[in-house]
């Protein structure tokens, strides 16, 4: 039995295969419409989420399966003080696979050690978000027809942005990748990513504070939101929340084929006017997220179309 807890749990070859299946699902959705008939997905969301939870649920429904679960910690036994270990032992009796989002880092890993069903990390605190990474990789591959040999700019909250951490870890495995990390000093990438991934694997990277100076060199610009829920101090949030706003004017400096990605939800870090720019790929990501989660559920449940 396999889980997806960390973006590196799958090899590059496995990711390639999974993205191929996701691409095929996009082209032939009917072929996959009953592959999970009779199977149940539990969505254990201890933290509010619109996109990720609905994406998982849509994915399972598209595969002919059914869904159960909870959308906030208040509506689960966690409110009574139940441990993650106990919850997953119970859920293992009700469902065939589960997706977990939790505000505490490492909760899905803890769950996977007590689970009898595959556990998918749907985001753990400011740590990792591997299914968003699969979505990002699918979108990058669709736009660029490759996953290596490019310069990726990551902008905004790189400290608590779990999608950023997962994406850096994943892309660092491909050849010819360079990172440009654009953030205020307080929201720079955590040490463990810099030390173990970037320096550890000798990946070229630079940390800068100004988006305009570097935007022309980028093949991908990955924007992120400064997340209020990750701050213990509201003053810090207010001071940093408007650090970067991507506008049509700034986009004039960017390459003609640069792709703009964003894990969403967006607040104001991408101006609405940019949505009409053909380089905006963030709504494609939402659709790709369903396809890639369908492929992932199939892979972990070891089911294939007839």
């Amino acid at each position: 039995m396999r889980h997806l807890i960390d973006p590196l749990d799958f090899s590059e070859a496995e990711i390639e295969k999974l993205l191929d299946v996701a691409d095929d699902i996009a082209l032939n959705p009917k072929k996959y419409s009953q592959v999970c008939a009779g199977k149940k997905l539990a969505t254990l969301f201890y933290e509010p989420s619109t996109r990720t939870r609905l994406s998982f649920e849509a994915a399972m429904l598209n595969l002919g399966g059914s869904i159960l679960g909870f959308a906030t910690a208040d509506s689960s036994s966690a409110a009574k003080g139940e441990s993650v270990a106990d919850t997953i032992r119970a859920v293992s009796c009700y469902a065939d696979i589960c997706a977990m989002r939790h505000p505490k880092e490492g909760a899905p890993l803890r769950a996977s050690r007590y689970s009898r069903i595959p556990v998918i990390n749907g985001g753990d605190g400011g740590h990792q978000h591997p299914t968003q990474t699969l979505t990002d990789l699918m979108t990058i591959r669709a736009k660029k027809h490759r996953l290596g040999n490019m310069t990726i700019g990551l902008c905004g909250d790189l400290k608590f942005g779990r999608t950023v951490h997962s994406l850096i870890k994943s892309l660092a495995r491909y050849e010819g990748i360079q990172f440009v990390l654009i953030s205020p000093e307080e929201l720079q990438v955590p040490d463990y990513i810099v030390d173990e991934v970037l320096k550890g694997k000798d990946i070229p990277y630079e940390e800068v504070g100004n988006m305009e100076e570097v935007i022309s060199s980028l093949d991908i610009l990955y924007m992120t939101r400064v997340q209020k829920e990750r701050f213990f101090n509201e003053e810090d949030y207010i001071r940093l929340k408007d650090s970067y706003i991507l506008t049509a004017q700034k986009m004039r400096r960017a390459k003609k084929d640069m792709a703009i990605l964003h894990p969403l939800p967006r607040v104001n870090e991408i101006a609405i006017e940019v949505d009409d720019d053909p380089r905006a790929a963030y709504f494609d990501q939402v659709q790709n997220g369903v396809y890639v989660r369908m492929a992932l559920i199939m892979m972990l449940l070891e089911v294939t179309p007839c």
Partner: protein
Amino acid sequence: MLNIDSLERGIVIDHIKAGCGMKIYNLLKLDELDCCVAVIKNARSSKYGKKDIIKIEDMVDLDLEILGFVDPHITIDVIDEGKIVEKKHLVLPQKLVNVIKCKNPRCITSIEEEIDHVFKLSGQGDHHYRCVYCEQEYQG
């Protein structure tokens, strides 16, 4: 010079950094032993100038994981019939279970009951340990 009888049978924890003898004594919970235990502070050392030594007059199982984490330069001499029959050199352990605690308030270890605090030696070399759950580095 202070004299402590040499051991006939037991264990000598040697080359402890001067001043750390009691820390080791407490970490290994040697106060719970029934046998004779001597903590020698500031003994002369040709290598370090000064060192601490702990002598235990019994064959006990020591947690070498803890000792390796605290100070990998410590050596363990196993004594039988007044002679050193084994000399153990310590290494930094690859994994620490319930030796140190994760201090990240966002880590699952901050709320989950009965959870082991597990750290792994990171690829950065000497003495960098990261929590397996949140990957935050241990700051002593």
